């Protein structure tokens, strides 16, 4: 919408994985493998690059190691092999449950992230918290306790907390899976709006094909046990998209067929 965003958007179609790699990427995984003690490998030989400002959806069935992969990028776990690069340092992470701290109010949850980020002035933090609440359209919710908010509102506060970390990379682990369809639809729109406004690189994990196509510029399909990159699609449908769009449905059918094939390999 702004000039900067437009530039990022128009630049997207021309960038390929090879070109991305030449510039500093937002996230780069090289031949990443992960094996937990005594188990079969969960991830194997993952090569994945997310360009600055790019929206990538990671799609896969159970056991493809989607969450494990996000943990590696978020530095909550270390890879068994290969390298994980996040040149900006830390990546903000959002979960399926909002995981807001119940002993703090909505505003204090965001404030804590600002404080741990090193923002010292109480007044500055208050102003920034109000700005972030406003950004996720929860003006006036500063003093609300998490349990007083609906699931969708909690996820928006969690999103504001993630934005408070001021990291150029946002990792999302099925953040809307527990929400009802209407709320999810609204949050899809909200997320795309915020992504366009902030220029964040988003790595969004989901098992919902339609959601992946609705949101992402790129959809990466992971195979299961071990998780490998099976295929990827560039989604050239312009935003704003709707989950009901025919183009979204058509691509979803194609991707679902591949996903089914991946899954049925395990039934033999």
């Amino acid at each position, binding site marked *: 919408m702004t000039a900067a965003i437009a530039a990022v958007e128009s630049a997207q179609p021309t960038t390929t994985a090879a070109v991305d790699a030449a510039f500093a990427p937002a996230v780069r995984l090289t031949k990443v493998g992960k094996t937990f003690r005594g188990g079969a490998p969960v991830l194997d030989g993952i090569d994945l690059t997310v360009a600055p400002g790019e929206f990538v959806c990671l799609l896969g069935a159970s056991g493809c190691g989607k969450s494990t992969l996000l943990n590696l990028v978020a530095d909550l776990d270390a890879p068994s092999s290969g390298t994980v690069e996040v040149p900006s340092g*830390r990546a903000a992470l959002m979960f399926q*449950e909002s995981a807001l701290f119940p002993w703090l109010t909505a505003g204090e949850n965001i404030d804590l992230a600002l404080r*741990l980020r090193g923002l010292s002035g109480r007044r500055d933090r208050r102003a920034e918290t109000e700005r972030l609440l406003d950004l996720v*359209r929860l003006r006036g919710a500063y003093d609300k*306790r998490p349990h007083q*908010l609906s699931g*969708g509102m909690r996820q928006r506060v969690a999103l504001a907390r993630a934005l408070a970390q001021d990291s150029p990379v946002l990792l999302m682990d099925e953040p809307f899976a527990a929400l009802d369809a209407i709320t999810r639809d*609204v949050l899809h729109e909200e997320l795309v709006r915020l992504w366009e406004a902030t220029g964040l690189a988003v790595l969004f994990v989901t098992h919902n094909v339609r959601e992946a196509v609705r949101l992402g510029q790129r959809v990466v399909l992971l195979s299961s046990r071990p998780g490998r990159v099976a295929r990827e699609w560039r989604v050239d449908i312009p935003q704003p998209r*709707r989950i009901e769009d025919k183009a979204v449905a058509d691509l979803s059918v194609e991707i679902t067929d591949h996903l089914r094939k991946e899954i049925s390999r395990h039934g033999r």
Partner: protein
Amino acid sequence: MAADTDTSGPAGDSLAHIEAGLDALETSAEPESSRLKHVAASVLPPIAALVLILAVWQILYAAKIWPDWKLPGPSQVFGSLKDTFSEGDAWGAVGHSIGHGAVGFGASVAIGTPLGILVGRFKPVRAGLGPILSGLQSLPSVAWVPPALMFFGPTPAMLYTVVLLGAVPSIAVGVMSGLDQVPPLYLRVGRNIGARGLASVRHVLLPAALPGYLAGLRQGWAFAWRSLLASEIIVQSANLGHSLGFLLKNAQDANDMSGAFAAIVLILAVGVAVNQLLFVPLERRVLKARGLA
């Protein structure tokens, strides 16, 4: 408002309206129950139970199954209670015992809390001390009175030793279980937003463990109070002054059953008062803020 913007599709402004509508629909105002009703609901049942107990007691007394000196009636015990207060013994004894209890409990919290964190967070310490703490918890603290008396003589140090040995294990175990109940997700979120090491303990671990800790404190107080009274009843000395235990033992020496009952009523009253005026409101406040009560 929401109806006419619903159809306009995904445009920024209408999205705000839809979101506001969803928010309004999905959050209902919490019903503010009246304070009077709440007080009535929590005060009336115990009063009714108390009246029932007194009635049964009065019936047993009136039936004359046992002589007066074995089972005095409620009115006689009430008379003794009044006498104790009018002679000035009661307030002194209550104050004395509460003073000892508060100091002993305070020291137990100061020792039990770090001990619980140590045992809860470090595996080797837990493997070593965990079973010992659980064992100590099941040991009646009155068992410590004879050795403490031999070591310290009839001094306040003896009282505090028995109180500490009674209360510290239960507070430490409370801290431990509080820490165990912290959802790992909170720790991961904490790490992600930058809380590592001490910051993680301060901003995530301790606040998350607070409800379990408060339950441990409550239990710790019960143990402290019991241990204190056990030693006060067994050990009588001018060094220890006129405590509630002294009052009870004195009644026994005078073969004064209603005096003994009066002392027990006082001991009970202190226990209930501390619980209801300190621990219950504190726990309720913490749980309510988290939507757990």
